């Protein structure tokens, strides 16, 4: 990969602030890179080149000494986040051609900071999937090996950074959809604490689980972005009225005395040996930096997957009831209103989305509510308590992110359970609402592996400090695919 322009947010920001290049030049450089490699990777659903250049020129004209570090920096946004005047499809045929009349809060905040959006990124349909193969439009390929998936559901958000088409992106994470693709594409990704970032304008999937978060090469870049998008929003009643700290100030490079717990249940059966080896080496590196590493237990871990696959589909079945082809989206023709609604939903939702709507509807239906939904909510309490007990002993948990490296396109698409199992290390964290950071920590069979760090609620500073200290001592985050 040619690197004649800055590839990290921090480097881009510094070059722009020093006047070494303009935002228009930087945006042109990224658009050229997109032209060169997007035909192979296909990370985007919509590329807004003209709009980006116009915004970049505006950023150049409005730059001040105290401009945000994101001022004039290009990035791209997952297509489940509403963008005023720019199509937002969620990777679904049921929202083909939908143009939101408003911006999500995160988009407003990025634009107010002067960031330049390059376009909208591919994902699994309505963020339901772990490979970006359930998008109704096209698949996205892993920049490290185009025969393999980028992970999902935020596969486009991970691939766009890994392929050098943007220095950063936004994705969303309901059960691992930021962290698993970050790991599989060898980039860094952060799922903030539930409530840290406003969900206003995020198309809802599992409302008690969804969070928006950033992708970039480094933890330091994630800190810059989180500082812009985090914070209370009166338009999201679940956003936390807690002040946003200066995440950059947390990056001291110092983790001596940090207590790191390694939950034994996360080294699951069937984990690839290369993944386990890279993860354990990364934990050893934290120890070398002065952290105290201890083994801990989260005994209800194995129940997280079945719990998640009741709660998330139940919430999804309610959230997706609104797609009826009446107020927006295309409508399939039929004889009566109900014909048209049922045909529109039956034909325009893809197989995985239909499966989850069915599962959720069943779990919530009369006679099954107590056996499935209520029980899952009770087990969710036990999973959350596991974390609370662990965090009474340690500051951070360190685990693998995914049991495997990026798998082949098509390998798991027809086996829903095999696909769901790829998120076994990430979904417990959404059920408990904790923040979690993934940083690249090595390779197995030539493909990237990611270390997952989990923190207490609203302890993003600790996670980012740990990830940054690790990246000061290692160079995995500087490796680039030969694309």
């Amino acid at each position, binding site marked *: 990969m040619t690197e004649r322009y800055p590839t990290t947010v921090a480097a881009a920001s510094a070059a722009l602030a020093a006047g070494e290049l303009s935002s228009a030049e930087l945006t042109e450089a990224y658009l050229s890179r997109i032209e060169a490699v997007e035909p192979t990777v296909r990370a985007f659903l919509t590329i807004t080149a003209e709009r980006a250049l116009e915004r970049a020129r505006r950023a150049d004209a409005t730059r001040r000494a105290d401009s945000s570090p994101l001022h004039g920096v290009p990035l791209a946004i997952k297509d489940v986040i509403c963008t005023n005047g720019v199509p937002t499809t969620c990777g679904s045929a049921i929202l083909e051609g939908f143009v939101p009349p408003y911006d999500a809060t995160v988009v407003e905040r990025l634009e107010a900071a002067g960031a330049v959006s390059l376009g909208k990124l591919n994902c699994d349909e309505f963020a339901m999937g772990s490979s970006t193969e359930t998008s109704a439009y096209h698949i996205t390929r892993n920049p490290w090996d185009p025969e393999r998936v980028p992970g999902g559901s935020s596969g486009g958000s991970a691939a766009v950074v890994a392929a050098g088409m943007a220095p950063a992106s936004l994705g969303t994470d309901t059960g691992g959809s930021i962290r698993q693709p970050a790991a599989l594409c060898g980039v860094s990704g952060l799922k903030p604490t539930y409530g840290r970032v406003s969900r206003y304008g995020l198309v809802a999937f599992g409302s008690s689980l969804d969070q928006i978060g950033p992708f970039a090469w480094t933890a330091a870049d994630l800190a810059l972005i989180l500082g812009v998008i985090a914070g209370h929003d009166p338009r999201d009643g679940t956003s936390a009225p807690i002040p946003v700290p200066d995440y950059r100030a947390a990056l001291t490079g110092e983790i001596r005395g940090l207590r790191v717990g390694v939950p034994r249940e996360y080294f699951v059966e069937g984990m690839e040996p290369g993944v386990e080896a890279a993860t354990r080496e990364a934990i050893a590196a934290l120890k070398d930096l002065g952290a105290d590493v201890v083994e801990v237990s989260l005994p209800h871990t194995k129940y997280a997957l079945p719990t998640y696959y009741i709660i998330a589909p139940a919430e999804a079945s309610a959230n997706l009831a609104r797609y*009826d082809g009446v107020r927006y989206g295309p409508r399939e023709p039929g004889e009566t209103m109900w014909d048209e609604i049922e045909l529109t939903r039956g034909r325009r939702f893809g197989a995985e989305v239909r499966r989850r709507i069915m599962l959720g509807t069943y779990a919530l239906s009369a006679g099954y509510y107590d056996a499935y939904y209520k029980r899952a909510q009770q087990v969710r309490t036990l999973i959350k308590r596991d974390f609370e007990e662990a965090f009474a002993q340690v500051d951070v948990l360190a685990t693998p992110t995914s049991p495997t490296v990026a798998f082949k396109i098509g390998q798991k698409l027809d086996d829903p359970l095999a696909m769901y199992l790829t998120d076994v290390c990430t979904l417990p964290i959404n059920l408990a609402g904790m923040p979690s950071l993934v940083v690249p920590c090595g390779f197995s069979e030539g493909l990237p592996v990611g270390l997952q760090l989990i923190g207490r609620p609203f302890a993003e500073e600790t996670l980012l400090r740990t990830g940054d200290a690790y990246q000061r001592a290692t160079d995995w985050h500087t490796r680039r695919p030969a694309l």
Partner: protein
Amino acid sequence: MALSSQEVAHVARLARLRLSAEELERMRSQLSNILDYIAMLQEVNVDGVPPTAQVTDLVTVMRPDEVTTGLTREQALANAPDQREGMFRVKPVFDA
């Protein structure tokens, strides 16, 4: 747990999804497999454990009861597949 074809058809109707016979059968088999896996939760002792519906510890958030601007009618209708006289238009709801 094996679902019957009738149960799957009933759930599809509740979810307002029109599925082909082939799709219903595939769905029956896949959902049965997933439910078999989920049955693992029955072995957990949940006696006296309160359910968790959300993790924020926030209670219902109120805002001042003041009029604010929303979408204009034009904006709200801009994505409508069919409209008439400033309203969303659908086929007859009731049988004639």
